[in-house]
């Protein structure tokens, strides 16, 4: 079980801020493929990875990072604070 969080327009496209997922995805890319296969709104949100960022347990990570031991995955657009 893994917590998946969505922020900003990713949250809006997918339509929810977080969900708990049962998955055996080995990497972030695998998880994205799994979610995108589920429903159109996921496929749409993940259609352009260059406009997405991912954090694993609240640290920025790469899309090929392994998910072993990870409890929280978050997807969001590039940050625009400051």
């Amino acid at each position, binding site marked *: 079980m893994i917590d998946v969080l969505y922020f900003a327009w990713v949250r809006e496209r997918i339509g929810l801020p977080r969900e708990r997922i049962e998955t055996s995805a080995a990497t972030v890319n695998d998880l994205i493929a799994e979610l995108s296969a589920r429903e159109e709104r996921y496929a749409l949100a993940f259609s352009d990875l260059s406009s997405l960022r991912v954090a694993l347990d609240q640290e*920025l990570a790469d899309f090929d990072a392994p998910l072993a031991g990870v409890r929280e995955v978050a997807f969001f657009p590039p940050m625009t*604070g400051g």
Partner: protein
Amino acid sequence: MRIAVQSEAFDMGAEANRFAAAVQGAGAIVTFTGIVRDSASGDLDVMEIEHYPGMTERALTTIATEAMARWSLADCLVIHRYGRLRATDPIMMVATASRHRAAAFAAAEFLMDYLKSRAPFWKKEITRQGADWVAARDEDEAALKRW
């Protein structure tokens, strides 16, 4: 070192004075304050700032800790708001204190560059035309390369 992530407004001058009063042995204090600008068409109703509770505080603490060590700062401060803001509201501020000015300036710019592209905040402009997520600027990402 103080990190504050808050929805409440803050008083930039009062925060700057409080920061300065607590500092020991510094000769230089730099502050940066980010202000909500109106939209291009001049009709900004609300600037909504979303963030990632938990990760935000971690990211800001990491960045501030690195700035403290790298420039031997006497102190540093980061305040960032989230929620609904209006044009001319202060969004955030950083303050740095050091013996001489070069370190205080460099550390403040470093904090801002990292905060912009590495702290999980997202801005949405709500105008009469509708709502738009603010796009990240390539030059903000590029600014990280200088450190």
